[in-house]
């Protein structure tokens, strides 16, 4: 129970930080915001790596596929966001 309250605290506070920070993003950048946040949600890759580290073959297979999925998410997300953001220029 104690451990749960700790992670719950982290969750609630992180939601608040997310709320405060992201309301400041202007509509101009909403698409890069989505693809960038998409890449961040690929953080599940950490969980996928940890599930390799067990003796069970089933977990290893699930973990491997999860790593592939999450990496597509991470690499695809950050690269495409970078590509988009590089196009936003001010008048020179």
């Amino acid at each position, binding site marked *: 129970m104690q451990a749960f309250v700790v*992670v719950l605290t*982290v*969750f609630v506070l*992180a939601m608040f930080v*997310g709320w405060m*920070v*992201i*309301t400041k*993003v*202007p509509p101009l*950048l*909403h*698409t890069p915001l*989505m*693809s*960038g*946040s*998409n*890449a*961040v*949600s690929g*953080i*599940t*890759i950490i*969980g*996928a*790596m*940890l*599930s*390799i*580290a*067990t003796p*069970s073959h089933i*977990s*290893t297979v*699930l*973990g*491997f*596929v*999860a*790593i*592939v999925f*999450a990496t*597509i*998410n*991470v690499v695809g*997300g*950050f*690269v*495409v*966001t*970078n*590509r*988009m*953001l*590089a*196009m*936003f220029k*001010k*008048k020179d």
Partner: protein
Amino acid sequence: MNPAFINLAYLVASVLFIVCFIELSHPRTAVRGNILGALGMLLAVVATLVDKGILAGGQQAYLIIFGGVVVGSILGAMLALMVKMTAMPQMVALLNGFGGGASVLVAGAALHDAVRPGMLPPTLQLTVATVLSGLIGGVTFWGSLVAFDKLQEFLLPGRPILFKGQQLLNIVLGLVIVGLGVLIVMEPGDQWAYWALVGVASVLGILLTIPIGGADMPVAIALLNSYSGLAGAATGFVLNNNVLIIAGSLVGASGIILSQIMCKAMNRSLANVLMGGIEAGAAGAPKADDVYAGKVKSATAEEIAMLFDNASRVVIVPGYGMAVSQAQHAVRDLTNLLGAKGIDVEFAIHPVAGRMPGHMNVLLAEADIPYDKLKEMDEINPSFQQTDVAIVIGANDVVNPLARTDPNCAIAGMPILDVDKARTVVVIKRSLSPGFAGIPNPLFAMDNTLMFFSDGKKAITDLIAAVKEAS
């Protein structure tokens, strides 16, 4: 390695993610922000490599991780580098799906490990969070694939797919999921129940996405974005891992905010959008014949080009039609040409123009239009009265004055771009066919409106030729 060091690295990664989002709030800092986010991810991954479980797995564990990362990186980079800017909504939908799918698999693996013989019974936190990961992840994965398909119009049409008893079926599926969820919590050893739950959640994900039509896609994509984050956060609860919880909830919050903004920009509730409700309200609108009969004036490129002779301010209003006809580069050329004649040209961007939040901005930025020329609705609306020519290209519902005047129509109360206040309005459109809301647009029949019936890209190219000819 001492787990405290790994957790410290996770803390730094979490801070980098937050800084990434802070910097994404301005185009000047956004590129750096994105790179910081990627660095945070790299740090988290490298720190996890020295986790004692993975160290114990030895060479084999590292080979599997390395192999997965290489395969995923190649696929991800290929997708990201090859995708066209007009296809960005599909791309984001697809990436959302992969995130959700990964959460399903990780939670499934964690449950499998937790119920191995000789292990202590799993905690309530683990089982409940596993159920949530399976549910949200399954809905996200299949919902995103359907959204991808509808945007691509590959197998399914873009319009809403509704059938009798749809809501009832969704409720039944929801109850089955609750039942399976309770079973998993009571008897975690019954792993089949988890995969059955994922299966039912997958069907639910498909059924929840098919009623969402083309122009409502921005909401669906924002929502799926939020789900992919929440699925990651739920997996964080499964593994008791803070960095998953923090990153997942940041993304969850982001998606929720965006879907709220989109709903507000259409004056509709989230429930209404999710049920494909716009068709139900269409009955209140006037008949197209009554609105258009004898009042629509059509003009040629030469006639429109003459309008620019005495103009000092032009506002261009892009919509999804501009993306479809790939007209953004031609629009840029026209903008430069008018700019050279001393005309002030700006762009009016409605929050739900296109198929995802910010879609038009990305397309125009791709065509090298400076971002300070791209104006939000609230900022540009008061200036239409001082605008000589407003050019609407491929937009319809977002410039329909019925939203202001007809409380019974499908878009009643939706904030619109006030192009009708401009001195002259030029609407580039292939025909008088209605937009997504299925209602006629009195703007097309107004005294100060000229219709230019043509494909978007061809119309702009013809216009450029006519302006050059005249000068």
